[in-house]
C-alpha cells in the first residue's frame, strides 16, 4: 500500500495515500473539530469548522476533504486557525435561533459544544428573528429550519444512505434552506419516516414529534390503565442516555424505571410479540412455499421499509408478509386478549410502545392496523430518547435502580425475539423456528451467516431436504439494490429481511443521539449489536416457539398461527402510495 508521510503539529504520521488530513490527524490522536462531516455519510467541506493551516500553503484548508500529502506540515491550532473557527461559529450563530434552554438538544448539541469550546460571542453579529415556519405536520418528525446550520448531514443521510432523497437544499445564498420539493411539508412528501436525518442532525433542527405529554396525561388520568412495552433494542441503548457505556444492557433497570413513572404503570416485554411475529411469519412462509404463494416473502416488521415499498416499489406489496410488526401485534394482543381476560374496556387501556424508531410513530397511526375501528391499538409510540426524558423528568436515577422483571403475563420471551433489534435478527429467529418446525431434530441455533455488517448477506440453508435461499440487508439504499436484482430475475430467494436503518433497530432513528465525535471514531452500531447477541446467548429459551407466553396466548386465544383469530388480530394490509406525494 502506498503511503504518505506528513507532520501534524510536528508529530510525524504515516497514512495510506488518499487519507484526508482529518483521517491522518485521527490516526495521530489529534482532534480537529468538525460539524458537517459525518463518517460514511457526509463529507463535503461545507461548514469550515475543520480548517487547518499547512506550511507553505496559502489560506486555510478544510481537513475533512483535503488529502494528506507527502511532506506536508499541518498545524491544527494556530491563532489563525482558532480565529477562523471562532468567526465561522459566530457567523453560524448569527442566523441560529438561539433558544438553547428550551431546545430539546440543550446539552447535547454539537454547535453548543463547539461554541463553548471556542468561547464565542453569540451576539457578535446581529441576530435574526426566526424566519421559517416549523414543519410539524407529520406524526413523526419536526423540522425547525430556524435552528438549521446547513451542514447537509440530514440531506446526505436521506440521499447517500437511504437513496430516497426526499429532502434537499432549496434556493441559494441567504435564502438556502433544507426541505422537501416545492417546500411541501415532510408529511406530504414520500418520506418513509426512518429518522436517519434526525440522528444525523448536530443541532435541534430535526427532532421526533414528541408525545411525552400525552403519556403523562394518561398516567395521571384515574380512568386509564397505562401499559408500556419496550422493543428488543431498547435494553441495549437506553443506558446511553444515562451515561452508561455504549452497548450496556440495562433491561432490569429500564423495567424498574418505567414502573416508577406512575402508580399502576405496567411494563411488558416486546420481545414476546417479536416471538409471536416469528410464529406467524414462519407459518406464512411455509404456507407460501407449499401453496405457490408470492415469493420471496419480505419481512414486514420495519415500518420504514414497509412505507418504502408502498411508495417506491408497490409491485412488491404482495411480497410483504401480512404479519403486523411486533409493535402492531402487541397493541392488538393488549386491546383484545388482555382486555378480555382482565375485564378492561379497551378504551381505558392506554398502550405505550417504546421503540427505537420514528417510523413506528407513523405506523401507530395506520388505520389498517386497527383491530377495532373505534380506537388505535397503540395509543403512543415513544422513541428511546423520549423514554429517557420521561425517566429524567420523573427524577428517577436509572443507575441506582435495582434490576426488576417485566410484568406478567408478558414477561417471558426468547433470544429469538431479542435479536430482532439487529440486522439479520428477524431472519435468524425465523430460521430457528422454521428449521425446528420442519425437522424436529434440527440442532443449529446460531445462524451467524446472516449477521454482520456486510451490505447484503445471501445464504442457502437446507432443512429437512428443503433448500431455502435467504437474503438480508439494511439501509434502504442497499434495499433498492436488492429489489432491482430480484426484479431483473438475478436472484431466487424465499425469504428476505430488510430493515430501513443501517444495522437495524439498534441504529434506529429514535435511538439516543451520538455526536459526531463518537460516530466518527467508534463503531457504535457493533457495540449495540453485541449487547443484543450477548443477551440472546444468555436467554433461557432461544427459539421463539419455545416461549411459554407464546404457548399461553395461542392456547387461550389465538388457537394456532394463521388461524382465523390470529389472522384477524395479528395480520394487516398495505396501501399503494404516491411516489411524489403523501
Amino acid at each position, binding site marked *: 500500500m502506498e503511503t504518505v508521510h506528513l507532520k501534524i503539529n510536528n508529530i510525524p504520521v504515516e497514512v495510506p495515500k488518499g487519507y484526508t488530513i482529518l483521517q491522518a490527524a485521527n490516526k495521530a490522536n489529534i482532534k480537529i473539530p468538525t460539524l458537517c462531516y459525518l463518517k460514511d455519510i457526509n463529507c463535503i467541506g461545507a461548514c469550515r469548522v475543520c480548517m487547518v493551516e499547512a506550511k507553505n500553503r496559502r489560506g486555510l484548508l478544510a481537513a475533512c476533504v483535503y488529502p494528506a500529502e507527502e511532506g506536508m506540515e499541518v498545524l491544527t491550532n494556530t491563532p489563525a486557525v482558532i480565529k477562523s473557527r471562532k468567526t465561522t461559529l459566530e457567523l453560524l450563530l448569527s442566523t441560529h435561533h438561539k433558544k438553547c434552554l428550551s431546545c430539546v438538544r440543550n446539552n447535547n448539541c454539537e454547535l453548543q459544544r463547539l461554541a463553548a469550546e471556542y468561547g464565542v460571542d453569540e451576539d457578535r453579529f446581529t441576530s435574526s428573528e426566526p424566519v421559517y*415556519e416549523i*414543519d410539524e*405536520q407529520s406524526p413523526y418528525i419536526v423540522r425547525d429550519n430556524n435552528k438549521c446550520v446547513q451542514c447537509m448531514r440530514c440531506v446526505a443521510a436521506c*440521499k447517500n444512505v437511504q437513496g*430516497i*432523497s*426526499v*429532502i*434537499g*437544499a*432549496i*434556493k*441559494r445564498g441567504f435564502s438556502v434552506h433544507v*426541505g*422537501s*420539493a*416545492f*417546500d*411541501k*411539508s415532510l408529511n406530504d*412528501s414520500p418520506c418513509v419516516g426512518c429518522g436517519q436525518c434526525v440522528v444525523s442532525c448536530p443541532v435541534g433542527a430535526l427532532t421526533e414529534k414528541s408525545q411525552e405529554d400525552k403519556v403523562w396525561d394518561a398516567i395521571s388520568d384515574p380512568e386509564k390503565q397505562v401499559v408500556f412495552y419496550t422493543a428488543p433494542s431498547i435494553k441495549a441503548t437506553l443506558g446511553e442516555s444515562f451515561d452508561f457505556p455504549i452497548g450496556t444492557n440495562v433491561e432490569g433497570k429500564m423495567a424498574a424505571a418505567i414502573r416508577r413513572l406512575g402508580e399502576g404503570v405496567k411494563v411488558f416485554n416486546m420481545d414476546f410479540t417479536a416471538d409471536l411475529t416469528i410464529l406467524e411469519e414462519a407459518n406464512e412462509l411455509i404456507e407460501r412455499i407449499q401453496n405457490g404463494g408470492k415469493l420471496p416473502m419480505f419481512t414486514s416488521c420495519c415500518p420504514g421499509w414497509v412505507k418504502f415499498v408502498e411508495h417506491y416499489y408497490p409491485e412488491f406489496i404482495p411480497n410483504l408478509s401480512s404479519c403486523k410488526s411486533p409493535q402492531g401485534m402487541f397493541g392488538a394482543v393488549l386491546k383484545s386478549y388482555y382486555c378480555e381476560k382482565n375485564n378492561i374496556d379497551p378504551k381505558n387501556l392506554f398502550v405505550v410502545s417504546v421503540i427505537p424508531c420514528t417510523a413506528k410513530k407513523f405506523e401507530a397511526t395506520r388505520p389498517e392496523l386497527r383491530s377495532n375501528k373505534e380506537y388505535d391499538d397503540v395509543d403512543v409510540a415513544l422513541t428511546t430518547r423520549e423514554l429517557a426524558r420521561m425517566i429524567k423528568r420523573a427524577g428517577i436515577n436509572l443507575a441506582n435502580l435495582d434490576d426488576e422483571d417485566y410484568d406478567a403475563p408478558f414477561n417471558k420471551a426468547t433470544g429469538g425475539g431479542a435479536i430482532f433489534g439487529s440486522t439479520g435478527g428477524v431472519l435468524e429467529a425465523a430460521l430457528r423456528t422454521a428449521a425446528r418446525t420442519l425437522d424436529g431434530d434440527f440442532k443449529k441455533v446460531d445462524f451467524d451467516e446472516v449477521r454482520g455488517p456486510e451490505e447484503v448477506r445471501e445464504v442457502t440453508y437446507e432443512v429437512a431436504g428443503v433448500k431455502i435461499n435467504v437474503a438480508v440487508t439494511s439501509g434502504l439504499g442497499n434495499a433498492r439494490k436488492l429489489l432491482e436484482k430480484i426484479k431483473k430475475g438475478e436472484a431466487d430467494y424465499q425469504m428476505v429481511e430488510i430493515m430501513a436503518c443501517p444495522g437495524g433497530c439498534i441504529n434506529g432513528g429514535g435511538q439516543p443521539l451520538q455526536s459526531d465525535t463518537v460516530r466518527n471514531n467508534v463503531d457504535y452500531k457493533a457495540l449495540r449489536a453485541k449487547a443484543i447477541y450477548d443477551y440472546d446467548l444468555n436467554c433461557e429459551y432461544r427459539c421463539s416457539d419455545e416461549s411459554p407466553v407464546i404457548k399461553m396466548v395461542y392456547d387461550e386465544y389465538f388457537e394456532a398461527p394463521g388461524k382465523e383469530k390470529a389472522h384477524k388480530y395479528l395480520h394487516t394490509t398495505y396501501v399503494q402510495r404516491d411516489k*411524489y406525494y403523501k
Partner: protein
Amino acid sequence: MAEKTLPTFRGTPEQQQKLQEVIDRNKQLPGALLPVLHEAQEIYGYLPIEVQQAVADGLGVSLSEVYGVATFYSRFSLTPKGKHRISVCLGTACYVKGADKILAEVEKKLGIKSGECTEDGLFSIDSCRCVGACGLAPVMMIDEDVYGKLTPDQVDKIIDKYIAEEGGSN
C-alpha cells in the same frame, strides 16, 4: 407549509413529446439534470411541478434534487411568464434614480410580486440588472419597448395601455 397557488398547468402533447426527446438524448450523460432543465424551460417557458416530475422520472433522480437545482439558478423560473413581460432595471444607475419605487408601483398595480405572473397570464414582472440605457434611468422594459426617465405616477398609464390593447380591464 407556505404554498403558493400557481396557475393551472397547460402543457400540450407536443411539449411533452419534445421534453421526452430531450430526456432520452441526455439520460446517459453525467450531470444531465442541468441541460435538461434548460431545455425544459425553453419548451414550457417555466418549470412547473409537472415538468420537474417528468424530468425526475426520466432521469431517475428525486424531485427534491430537481427542485434544488431549479431554485438554485436564478435563470430558472417556477412561475410562467406573462404574455407581456415587464422588466424593471435595478442596476446601479436606475437604482439611485429610484427604480425600487417604480418596481413597487408596478407590483401594486398588478397585485403580484416580482418573479410572478398575473392570474390571467397577461403580465409577469421581473427585475434585471442594466439594460444599457443608463442615460434614461430609471428604465423599465415591457416586451421590446423601453420606457425611460420614469416616475412612479407614469406606471399606471403605461400598463393601462397594454390592458386596453387586450380589450380588457384590470
